[in-house]
């Protein structure tokens, strides 16, 4: 690539940019024409925000699912999602608010049933007091753990001391009593209707956003997705039906009294707001039953584990107490303790303490005292450390057996040796022996001993004994006597 100096450059755009630019322009045109038809002002940017809303909704759902999973209740996630959805429909509280509130409660209580109960209470309290659902849920979660500071703002008629002293059940009862029916009343107000509209439109945005993502995925890119989505909107106008319905409801409300509007809504099968503390799943009892059963089994398992743990701890305590009691009758320890009470020098005291540590198997103390004793005896610091950390000594007499076996073998060989008999194979020669006798003739006045007396030529083996014991076992006994005269550990030999 050559070096360039560019003069008078002009931006002409990149191919990919141009393609996307065209797609967005087309989408803008489609959306604007649709908006004109509906009499509202819509832009493509609005649909991008819908996509964001869908993404945020998904992220919140994933967050709650993860929190439930971390509590070990992953099995309940589908039921919780269903519960949140139904709760949203019935109370007209957006799932964006319900999920964080539920998460706070379930994290604190670790109980599905209790969290549902508290969420119902929280919705009523939120609607009655004007506080946000998140704040109320947080206050309830804190109160469950014993921190009732946040409950002062609800004016329950209790002093700080009374709040601190009251149990959570009492506080919950008070809240339910004070804010009962607040949610129902709220939905009938103007603000409640606006919120209903907002919720419907919010859900529409999320649906539109999800549709957008689906189309992007199908078209293989954002430019293609925008094009396809624009055509889809032009052709069908999907997703606006719900909004149209909500807008229609609002208009209807302006033209009739409250009672008539209630009747109108009742005709449309709108379920009443939940009564605090009562189960929400009247219509979905199978879900309810499954959840309750799972909760019960889990509680039973936890209780069983707890009891087993308690029993184990009690048993261990008992054993430790018995062992400690047993040491009272240990004579060696009694003697050492008695000796320690006497008047002793430092070195003697240390020796006794070391003995006691060895008796009671107190390794840490034993090491420490060995070290101190070695220092006290004038040994070098390094040597004292080495002594304190010596591994278990191997048997110094291990090699002796082999040596002694060899000696025994040699002795047996000697005993078994058969010399050649006198005269056999030796030719007769003239001449005399050292005594002057002629060789080959009997020695005068010589009486030979009886055969078998001496080892040569057969007979009993020679046995060497020390203190009435054979040499091998005698030597072994000597060295094991502990007498320093016989054992020299440093040189490895023996005297």
């Amino acid at each position, binding site marked *: 690539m050559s*070096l360039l100096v*560019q003069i008078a450059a002009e931006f002409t755009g990149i191919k990919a940019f141009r393609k996307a630019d065209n797609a967005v322009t087309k989408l803008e045109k489609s959306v604007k024409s649709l908006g004109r038809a509906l009499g509202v002002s819509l832009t493509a940017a609005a649909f991008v925000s819908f996509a964001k809303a869908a993404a945020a909704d998904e992220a919140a759902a994933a967050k709650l699912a993860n929190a439930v999973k971390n509590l070990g209740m992953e099995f309940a996630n589908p039921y919780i999602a269903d519960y949140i959805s139904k709760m949203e429909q019935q109370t007209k509280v957006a799932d964006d608010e319900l999920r964080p509130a539920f998460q706070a409660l379930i994290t604190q209580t670790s109980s599905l049933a209790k969290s549902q109960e508290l969420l119902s209470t929280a919705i009523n309290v939120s609607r009655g007091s004007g506080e946000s659902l998140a704040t109320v849920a947080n206050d309830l979660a804190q109160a469950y753990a014993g921190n009732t500071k946040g409950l002062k703002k609800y004016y329950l008629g209790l002093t700080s001391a009374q709040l601190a002293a009251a149990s959570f059940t009492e506080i919950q009862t008070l809240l339910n009593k004070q804010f009962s029916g607040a949610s129902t009343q709220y939905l009938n107000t103007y603000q409640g209707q606006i919120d209903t509209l907002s919720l419907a439109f919010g859900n529409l945005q999320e649906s539109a956003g999800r549709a957008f993502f689906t189309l992007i995925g199908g078209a293989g890119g954002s430019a293609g997705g925008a094009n396809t989505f624009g055509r889809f909107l032009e052709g069908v106008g999907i997703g606006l039906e719900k909004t149209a319905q909500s807008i229609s409801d609002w208009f209807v409300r302006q033209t009739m009294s409250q009672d008539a509007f209630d009747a109108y809504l009742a005709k449309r099968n709108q379920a009443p707001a939940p009564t605090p503390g009562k189960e929400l799943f009247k219509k979905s009892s199978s879900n309810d039953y499954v959840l309750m059963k799972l909760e019960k089994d889990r509680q039973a398992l936890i209780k069983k584990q707890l009891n087993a743990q308690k029993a184990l701890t009690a048993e261990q305590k008992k054993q430790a107490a018995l062992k400690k009691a047993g040491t009272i009758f240990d004579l060696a320890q009694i003697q050492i303790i008695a000796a320690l009470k006497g008047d002793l020098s430092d070195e003697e005291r240390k020796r006794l303490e070391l003995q006691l540590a060895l008796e009671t198997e107190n390794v840490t103390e034993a090491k420490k005292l060995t070290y101190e004793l070695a220092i006290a005896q004038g040994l070098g610091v390094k040597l004292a450390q080495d002594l304190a950390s010596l591994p278990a000594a191997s048997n110094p007499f291990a090699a002796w057996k082999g040596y002694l076996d060899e000696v025994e073998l040699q002795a047996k060989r000697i005993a078994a040796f058969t010399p050649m008999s006198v005269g056999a194979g030796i030719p007769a020669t003239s001449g005399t022996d050292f005594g002057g006798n002629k060789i080959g003739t009997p020695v005068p006045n010589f009486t030979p001993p009886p055969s078998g007396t001496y080892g040569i030529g057969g007979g009993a083996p020679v046995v060497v004994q020390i203190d009435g014991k054979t040499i091998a076992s005698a030597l072994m006994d000597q060295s094991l006597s502990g007498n320093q005269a016989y054992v020299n550990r440093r040189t490895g030999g023996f005297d």
Partner: protein
Amino acid sequence: MPTEVRGAIALRKALRQFEPDLAKETTKEITSFLKPVVKNARGFLPSNEEVPSGWVKRPNQGGRWANRSYDAAEARRGVSFKSTPSKPNRNGFRSLATIFNKSAAGAIYETAGRKSGVTGKFTPHLGGQLKGKGQKGTGRVIFRAVEEDQGKAKAGIMKALKRAEDKYYGRVK
């Protein structure tokens, strides 16, 4: 960063199509501004005796450095200009006029030491001066020539385009 203009390329296209003599005249005018800069730039290239002897191209040279060895004549041939619009680069820009240094040895001489500094055993012996703006706009040959030109060529080209535009619209009306 080169001066950004709008519509210059479209103008030149229109000139070529509708006013060819005006197009030729404009091209000549642009060339007249670029030639002195290029001549200057060629003058900054050293002769074969002035560069390290090991780098000078030898006859029948083989290996990797066969195409990278320095030959003054080849390097001078590699420094030139172009007055027709270039292709868009990765950022989407097209230039109306370009001065380039095409040869490998010329590029080595142009850019040696502009990132790591004039250090070591080779770069300090090259001579020349590194001039320009920014790391990628600095060099010993074309960048130095443009820097020393102080934007006169650029201004002249802009004026030439403006005159061409005025003449074009004057004639079109």
